């Protein structure tokens, strides 16, 4: 049965701004299916983003939406969540927004383990400004500011999140569309800071500079490079060379920030037991 996306979309906002073949729309659909699965209340759900192509996502969804400054989504969202812990707070944005200019806010949101879900669309480039290299652009790749190839090593967003203290970390791809909503559902259900990295494509500013002849070639790369964590357990290092693990990569029970602060209030008021 066709899924009713219209129920969650603000009327009159489509077509969206993303380029032909950009996976952000696929991710947005995954998020909408997750919201529907969980039956979240629109007026009790905040979707917060920074700046960039992926950060335009909240404008389309009929919830409390906050399109903030470049890299600052996690900091704004922390204010929303802490002031109103009963709200569901979901963040979204791109790799440059989240791990370069927003890197500090990102790692500290992970460290606090505040109960929010961050969907990072990693297309390995700054798309909106025309294709400059990001902290996730592979070494050697071409970007508008690496005409001789990228000298920088890249971040592994999932490892970064785990290292910084996020208690749920998952990875999917825009090609594996039917997995996206399932990962987001599990992330939102998890109590603590959850990160869902979606490997994405930017045919316009990354693909054409890096010898991808079409959207399809970029999608095929996502298809080929992804290995589910379960499958990887049975593979040897040689077979895993150049592959990227997908699925739930890390899950851990640990104290959640708003709950910990509630204890601070109890102690301050002398009502702690």
């Amino acid at each position, binding site marked *: *049965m066709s899924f009713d996306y219209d129920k969650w*979309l603000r009327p009159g906002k489509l*077509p969206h701004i993303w380029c*032909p073949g950009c*996976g952000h*729309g696929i991710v947005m659909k995954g998020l909408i299916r997750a919201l529907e699965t969980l039956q979240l209340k629109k007026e009790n759900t905040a979707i917060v983003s920074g700046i960039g192509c992926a950060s335009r996502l909240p404008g389309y969804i009929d919830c409390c939406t906050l399109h903030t400054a470049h890299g600052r989504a996690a900091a704004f969202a922390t204010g929303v969540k802490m002031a109103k812990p009963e709200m569901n707070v979901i963040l979204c944005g791109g790799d440059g927004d989240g791990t370069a200019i927003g890197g500090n806010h990102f790692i500290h949101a992970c460290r606090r383990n505040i109960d929010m879900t961050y969907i990072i669309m990693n297309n390995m480039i700054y798309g909106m400004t025309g294709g400059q290299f990001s902290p996730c652009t592979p070494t050697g790749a071409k970007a508008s500011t690496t005409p001789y190839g990228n000298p920088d090593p890249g971040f592994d967003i999932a490892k970064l999140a785990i290292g910084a203290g996020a208690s749920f970390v998952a990875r999917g791809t825009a090609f594996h*569309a*039917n997995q996206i909503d399932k990962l987001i559902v599990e992330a939102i259900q998890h109590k603590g800071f959850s990160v869902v990295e979606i490997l994405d494509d930017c045919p316009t500013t990354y693909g054409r500079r890096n010898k991808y002849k079409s*959207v*399809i070639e970029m999608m095929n790369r996502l298809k080929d490079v992804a290995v589910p964590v379960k499958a990887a357990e049975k593979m040897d290092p040689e077979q895993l060379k150049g592959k990227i693990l997908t699925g739930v990569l890390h899950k851990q029970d640990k104290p959640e920030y708003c709950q910990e602060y509630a204890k601070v209030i109890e102690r301050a008021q002398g009502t702690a037991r």
Partner: protein
Amino acid sequence: MEKKLPTIEIIEKYCKGCHICVEFCPKQVLEMKGFVAAVKDLEACIKCMQCELRCPDFAIKVTA
């Protein structure tokens, strides 16, 4: 018993012509007609919904 065919609705004003639905349909149900996707062979559709799931532009609705 006669096979019940699905309906595949393509919203042309949303379609940006990325080819994803056409290329990854396991049964070659879809094709490009000019700049937008179109149904070529509805009978072949196995209702796997991958075209709807992968369409970045909210332009395909498959009703089984």
